[in-house]
């Protein structure tokens, strides 16, 4: 995976923060040690940490995946633990666009408009099979993958993905941001 390669270059490992038996991760120990020993951290690491710990999503629920996205706000799969329970309705205030659901051609223009209205840095998660690739709807009406119009950071497969799957996608995005990987619009343009 491209993200794994990048982390390895930085000398870090992919971590699964959702393991219950896992101790603090390498990045966390590194940060803690730095702070303890030196008392200061690099500015970009601090900024990345702040971006990750309160990355506010935009309310962009389209279809069935939106219901599973709502359930991660619920009490069982609580996303407030990661500082993300504030779903901003205004794209001007949102950092993360979780495209949850099938995107029809009619909706593609509003989607791009919302994406353009978001301020940088901004990240996009393509949630579900329909946003990642068109899903089971390989037809005239559905845009075959949302990466044709926006640059996507993380694809979360599933129809619909379980809340834990979506959280895994979000956590991986957090790890990528903390590792210093730039948002997708700096890395690649939209798919052909």
């Amino acid at each position, binding site marked *: 995976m491209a993200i794994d390669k990048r982390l390895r270059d930085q000398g870090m490992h992919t971590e699964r923060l959702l393991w219950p038996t896992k101790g603090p991760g390498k990045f966390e120990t590194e940060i803690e040690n730095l702070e303890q020993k030196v008392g200061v951290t690099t500015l970009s690491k601090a900024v990345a940490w702040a971006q990750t710990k309160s990355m506010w999503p935009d309310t962009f629920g389209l279809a069935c995946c939106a219901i599973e996205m709502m359930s991660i706000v619920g009490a069982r799969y609580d996303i407030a633990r990661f500082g993300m329970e504030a779903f901003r309705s205004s794209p001007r205030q949102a950092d993360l666009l979780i495209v949850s659901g099938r995107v029809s051609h*009619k909706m593609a223009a509003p989607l791009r408009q919302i994406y353009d209205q978001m301020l940088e840095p901004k990240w996009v998660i393509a949630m579900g099979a329909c946003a990642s690739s*068109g899903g089971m*709807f*390989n037809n*005239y*009406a*559905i845009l*075959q993958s949302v990466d044709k119009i926006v640059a996507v950071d993380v694809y979360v497969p599933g129809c619909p993905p379980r809340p834990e799957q979506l959280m895994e996608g979000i956590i991986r995005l957090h790890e990528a941001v903390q590792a210093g990987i730039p948002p997708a619009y700096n890395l690649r343009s939209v798919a052909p």
Partner: protein
Amino acid sequence: MSVGSTELSGDAGSAGVGAENPVAWSKIHGVSHVETGHGETTLVVKPERLIEVCTHLRDEEGFNFLSDVSAADYLGWGGHGVSGYIGTAAGRDLNQPMTQGLQTLPQPKPKRFSVNYHLLSVTDNPRRIRVQTWVEDGEPVPTVIEVWPTADWHEREAWDLMGIPFEGHPNLKRILTDDDWEGHPLRKDYPIGGEPVRFSEAE
């Protein structure tokens, strides 16, 4: 009206099991013939008599609820030989040589498009009935929006997806597809669209 009664002499349709007195339905002025099947009654009507029949059904028979307006495209119907349900007498009969067992083609349809109005009577005597009318490509169907206001969006959808023009509809615009969409997607000659899927690196 004498015009109505000459139309229905002889075409009483088949009286199936559970048919609710098809002869009584066929006596309504404007109904061409009555079909029954699977416990459902279908009144086949010519487009020009549609509003008359619908108003009669709403006012006299109590069908005050229009449940659905469905259009169907029969282009290519019966083009490939299909048999009935394999296990039934109408299905495959392998004793017939050189036929691959295929016996029946589906019944031919009079025109390309059928517009079906599913009616329901929300009264103490609940019943369902279907009113069916047949049109060719481009032939208009009078709108029943004055009879049941709920037909508004249903007819817009039939226009959008099937291309059936409804005469007299005050707001016949595209509803489900984009405003500048070309073509009518649910027609049989409109391609399914989409993209070819690559299953391996080799393709």
